[in-house]
């Protein structure tokens, strides 16, 4: 790689020629603040927070987009630079709704931190006209409060570039500019898939999930309700971040302990239902292959992906597995098998799901998700909402002991755990399908070709006499690429896994928010996924169909895998939706 020599704050530095000033500074341990910049998807140099002095340049330049060159002399922290950044912040504040105390992002707001870092003393130095925008509550999963928007366009980039959707964007011009949807439609009236990637990249409190924690508190406080909680596989890989732990900390034991202390009647684990999903899905796959069903079969665990398929590829819905997602399977099994076993009326049971995902809030209200005549899952909260509950309850998370999930719906295999990473469902399904089709125990259970954080992965496996070609995609822009091939009939695969969020659930739209300073330079997806793969490697049982609790549920209730009863309770249907 060709290097250039520059001077950064007086120190000589050699950096690759294609670096921006921001990257060069970062490589030398010098932090330049950013606000609008999101690596690879929003490099627009708009907000002017990252300005630096370049010797010979007429004015300050935006470090996030300014390339280095031989002999360049850069100063990142002169008084002139600091004053300019402070003035920019004061101007942003002139139209900002400064009700910080009651803001959902108070304490994790990037604008708030910058104001503190740069010594903004008078937040009303410039008093601008403050446009009034109604808060958009039209979507089930989230709201938009444009009075707190700084027009950085990070949400717009996440929606259009990672997800290939583009239902939000800047409308109007000048002072009237605001982020919204076409023709002023509420987000709930667009073809938004509810993935929540816009929320996790928002630097302020302009975007947030609809908080459903009060419903959970109310259920716990109601003595007539039997309240069950199920955290998704990926929660154990991310919840610690909400309490200041490093990215990639495994908090499985503390998660179970915290949920128990919040007062849930049973602390179970979605991982059991992930195992259930695998036996049903692998069974469905083998059926489709042997009986000439629609192929390739595509996974249906990710509700953002399912809604995407319904909006943008309604003609391809027969490719979707009919399996409910693990969250819904869990609720369905809890309100049928477990309720019956315990003599509880399913109407008195409340199933709470802790999910890495905002689309789960949409999914719980879908049709054909009510096996016991009541919704399979009552309340879906995000990792962020759970962290809020733990704080409010006065639980010192980092001091909790490690505890186990309750029996019988808390037992899982390593296959269930890896669901939270892109490729995990595929690997788990292959472990089971390969053993069933091959007719003998599988020696090597790791299918490493489908691991990793790339957007699209392909592999080919010998399963018995069958060559199975698989593809794994995460991020809906990548999904669209694969689906265009499926639609054109050129996709040479039998089995496809698709997750809505880039990297899968570990990077879901409901996960703890990491500021751009972390997001731009740390491998969030990889570090979080590593927690799950390590947990899998440490499990005595690593194949879903060997989960003892699962086998007992089938023995007592469903009968065979893929039985008529299993179909009634654990499978669902889809609807065609409009693409506008």
């Amino acid at each position, binding site marked *: 790689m060709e290097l250039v020599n520059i001077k950064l704050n007086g120190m000589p530095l050699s950096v690759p020629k294609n670096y921006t000033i921001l990257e060069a500074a970062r490589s030398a341990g010098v932090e330049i603040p950013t606000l609008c910049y999101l690596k690879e998807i929003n490099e627009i140099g708009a907000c002017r927070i990252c300005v630096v002095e370049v010797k010979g340049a007429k004015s300050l330049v935006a470090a996030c987009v300014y390339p280095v060159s031989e002999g360049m002399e850069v100063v990142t922290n002169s008084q002139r630079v600091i004053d300019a950044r402070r003035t920019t912040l004061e101007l942003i504040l002139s139209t900002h709704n400064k009700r910080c105390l009651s803001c959902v992002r108070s304490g994790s707001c990037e604008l708030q931190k910058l104001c503190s870092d740069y010594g903004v003393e008078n937040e009303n130095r410039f008093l601008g006209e403050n446009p009034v925008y109604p808060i958009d509550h039209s979507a089930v999963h989230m709201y938009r409060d444009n009075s707190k928007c700084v027009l950085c366009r990070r949400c717009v980039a996440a929606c*259009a570039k990672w997800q290939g959707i*583009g*239902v939000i*964007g800047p*409308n109007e011009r000048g002072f009237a500019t605001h982020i919204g949807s*076409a*023709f002023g439609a509420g987000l709930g009236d667009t073809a938004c898939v509810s993935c929540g990637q816009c929320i996790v990249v928002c630097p302020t409190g302009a975007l947030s999930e609809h908080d459903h924690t009060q419903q959970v508190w109310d259920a716990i406080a109601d003595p007539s309700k039997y309240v069950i909680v199920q955290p998704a596989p990926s929660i154990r890989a991310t919840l610690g971040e909400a309490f200041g732990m490093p990215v990639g900390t495994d908090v499985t034991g503390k998660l179970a302990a915290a949920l128990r202390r919040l007062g849930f009647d049973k602390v179970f684990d979605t991982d059991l239902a992930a195992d259930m999903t695998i036996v049903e899905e692998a069974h469905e796959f083998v059926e489709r292959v042997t009986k000439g069903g629609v192929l390739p079969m595509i996974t249906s665990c990710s509700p953002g992906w399912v809604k995407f398929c319904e909006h943008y590829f309604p003609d391809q819905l027969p490719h979707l597995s009919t399996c409910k997602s693990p969250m819904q399977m869990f609720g369905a099994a809890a309100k049928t098998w477990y309720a019956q076993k315990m003599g509880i009326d399913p109407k008195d049971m409340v199933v709470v799901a802790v999910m890495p995902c905002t689309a789960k809030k949409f999914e719980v209200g879908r049709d054909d998700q009510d096996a016991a005549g009541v919704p399979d899952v009552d309340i879906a909260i995000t990792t962020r909402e759970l962290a809020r509950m733990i704080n409010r309850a006065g639980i010192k998370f980092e001091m909790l002991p490690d505890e186990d999930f309750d029996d019988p719906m808390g037992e899982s295999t390593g296959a269930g755990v890896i669901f939270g990473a892109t490729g995990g469902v595929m690997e788990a399904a292959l472990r089971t399908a390969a053993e069933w089709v091959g007719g003998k125990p599988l020696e090597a259970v790791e299918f490493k070709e489908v691991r990793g954080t790339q957007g699209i992965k392909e592999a080919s496996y010998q399963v018995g006499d069958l060559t199975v070609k698989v593809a794994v995609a995460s991020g809906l822009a990548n999904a669209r690429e694969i689906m265009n091939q499926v639609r054109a009939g050129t996709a040479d695969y039998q089995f496809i896994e698709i997750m809505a969020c880039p990297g899968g659930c570990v990077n879901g739209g409901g996960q703890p928010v990491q500021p751009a300073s972390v997001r731009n330079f740390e491998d969030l997806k990889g570090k979080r996924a590593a927690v799950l793969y390590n947990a899998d490697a440490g499990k005595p049982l690593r194949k879903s169909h060997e989960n003892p609790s699962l086998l007992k549920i089938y023995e007592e209730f469903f009968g065979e895998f893929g039985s008529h009863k299993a179909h009634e309770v654990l499978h669902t249907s889809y609807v065609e939706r409009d693409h*506008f």
Partner: protein
Amino acid sequence: MATTKAAIPFSGTPAQQAQLEKVIEAHKDQKGALMPVLQGAQEIYGYLPIEVQKMVSDGLGIPLEEIYGVATFYSQFTLVPKGQYKISVCLGTACYVKGSGDIFNKLSEKLGIASGGCTPDGRFSLDACRCIGACGLAPVLTVNDEVYGRLTVDDVDDILAKYGA
């Protein structure tokens, strides 16, 4: 948020649609196709209602919101149709100091529409414009290509009556 939904139902014809498809086809594979296509679409329909923007979205494979964002950014595009009689009131400096603001307000009140709007019967649309180079006649307004100058607020009724309002 600006009023962006047209009060008048869309009445595009198959011939107009065929024309638009031709424009899209001509620009489809070029970079920056959206601007010329929107300009062409506005020429064909006179404005860019949601029905037209959806056709452009499908034709170019660009999200509807992105098209709407462009259409609301540039003042050359309009989301509401223009009336049979397009009234344009000059709010340039000379006209403004001579009281064109009051004239504009009176028109807006009489027609029941804001700047950029069109009456529900499709007869009148109202726009504020900048200097039209007739400062000597200030304050001025135009109705289609007719110029009316040295106006007072009291002239508004007579002008509207001339066009059957």
